[in-house]
């Protein structure tokens, strides 16, 4: 069967008569191409022909005194005819194709590669903060912007690549390498943090900064070159690093505390769509509570199903509803300042590396929104060794 004829569909025919061979000869004389001609019985032939030739074959069969019947039709042209009688099936197929197309417009899997577990978790958390999660539209994701944001947010990253690949968002990163993990080989000494250089004593390599100069994270402090040969830079590099925390506390604040029973609901989610059972939770007061100032607060915990290291859009939901009672807390300016300062100190202490030398502390208090809020800002200056090794590209390539 010629390909273009196959596009038009083909028919399996049955020819019965005393001399079916005469039918075959008459058909080929008229330019008809037959395939798979078999003798199925003493007076019976089976063959395949183009669907468009069936009418002519019928005429030939009558002329030859044979009887022709079509056993089966196949091909694209017959597909529509068959679909007409199976419209429900056709509609379901169409809807399925549509759903597949629609599903392909979203990101369902986020893959993070090339980094260690903690950094991967950091990347995923930051992606979530940036609004990138399984179920987001592909068009809503800008890979270049994501790359920049991840580099800024995840301190241990030296390079990151973000790529949209079908329904996958693939993030591949390279971590800042610490000396212990680096092994040996030519390397630059770069700044691990934004800092002000206090002391730089190059032991090997060429210094690229001076005392009193500000350096940014990743900037080369001592280049690993000696007389144009790549070497492993070494130096004593100390700098001032600042850690900052800002906390705002209002003078009046409404806080909620649990006062009643806990309701639990369970459900499933696909992307942003979710279904919880029971569908409607009780309202405040329906459960016999006699506390008019109470209200229900719901927290939904999402447990996504995982496929290897990737999250699927499917998730198991667990919703916890608590009956809470609002209470207005009023603070004096002194109390608010004290609370804000305490919280700011607590926050900034969490950022400090262990055993670091503290040079200076600064504490600032500021009133905002016409005196309704107090803002505490705590800055700690530390003296740290800020050098980190980074392999030289020229040495790796060589």
């Amino acid at each position: 069967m010629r390909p273009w004829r196959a596009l038009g569909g083909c028919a399996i025919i049955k020819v019965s008569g005393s001399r079916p061979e005469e039918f075959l000869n008459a058909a080929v004389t008229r330019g008809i191409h037959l395939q798979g001609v078999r003798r199925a019985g003493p007076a019976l032939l089976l063959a395949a022909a183009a669907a468009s030739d069936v009418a002519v074959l019928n005429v030939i069969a009558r002329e030859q005194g044979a009887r022709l019947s079509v056993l089966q039709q196949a091909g694209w042209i017959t597909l529509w005819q068959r679909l007409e009688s199976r419209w429900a099936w056709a509609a379901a197929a169409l809807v399925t194709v549509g759903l597949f197309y629609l599903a392909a417009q979203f990101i369902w899997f986020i893959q993070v590669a090339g980094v260690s577990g903690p950094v991967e978790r950091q990347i995923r958390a930051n992606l979530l903060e940036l609004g990138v999660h399984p179920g987001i539209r592909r068009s809503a994701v800008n890979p270049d912007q994501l790359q920049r944001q991840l580099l800024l947010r995840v301190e241990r990253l030296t390079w990151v690549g973000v790529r949209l690949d079908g329904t996958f968002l693939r993030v591949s990163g390279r971590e800042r390498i610490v000396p212990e993990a680096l092994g040996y080989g030519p390397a630059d000494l770069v700044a691990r943090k934004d800092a002000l250089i206090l002391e730089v004593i190059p032991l090997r390599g060429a210094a690229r900064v001076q005392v009193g100069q500000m350096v940014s994270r990743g900037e080369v402090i001592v280049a690993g070159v000696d007389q144009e040969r790549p070497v492993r830079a070494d130096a004593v590099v100390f700098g001032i690093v600042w850690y900052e925390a800002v906390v705002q506390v209002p003078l009046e604040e409404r806080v909620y505390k649990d006062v009643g029973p806990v309701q639990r609901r369970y459900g499933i989610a696909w992307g942003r769509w979710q279904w919880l059972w029971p569908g409607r939770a009780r309202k405040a007061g329906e459960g016999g509570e006699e506390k008019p100032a109470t209200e229900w607060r719901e927290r939904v915990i999402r447990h996504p199903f995982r496929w290897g290291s990737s999250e699927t859009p499917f998730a198991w939901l667990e919703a916890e509803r608590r009956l809470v009672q609002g209470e207005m807390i009023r603070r004096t300016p002194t109390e608010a300042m004290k609370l804000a300062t305490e919280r700011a100190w607590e926050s900034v202490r969490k950022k400090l590396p262990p055993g670091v030398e503290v040079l200076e502390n600064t504490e600032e208090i500021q009133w905002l929104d016409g005196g309704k809020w107090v803002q505490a800002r705590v800055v700690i200056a530390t003296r740290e060794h800020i050098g980190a090794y980074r392999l030289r590209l020229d040495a790796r390539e060589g």
Partner: protein
Amino acid sequence: MRGVRSANLRGRLTAWADLPVDVLLNLPRVVMYGRQQLRVENHSGIEECQPQRVRVRTQAGVLQIDGHWLHLRSLDGQEVVVEGEIERTEWTKGGGP
């Protein structure tokens, strides 16, 4: 008689000029691929089509193919392709358009 003389003349001319005989003399070209397939170009029709025997008419006579599970894989005005387990081929008298 004139036809036979003409055919002889064309045969001698073909042999002298070293031309392909199937073209000038309208002879069938038979190609056999192992024992599974046999192609006959320039045939004149099907004389018989049975699972044990297929007979193809040509200008040179009737080509009889014996075997098992024989069938015509393809059939048109120029070529017939016979497939199956071919045991024997034999030229018999007869044929013609």
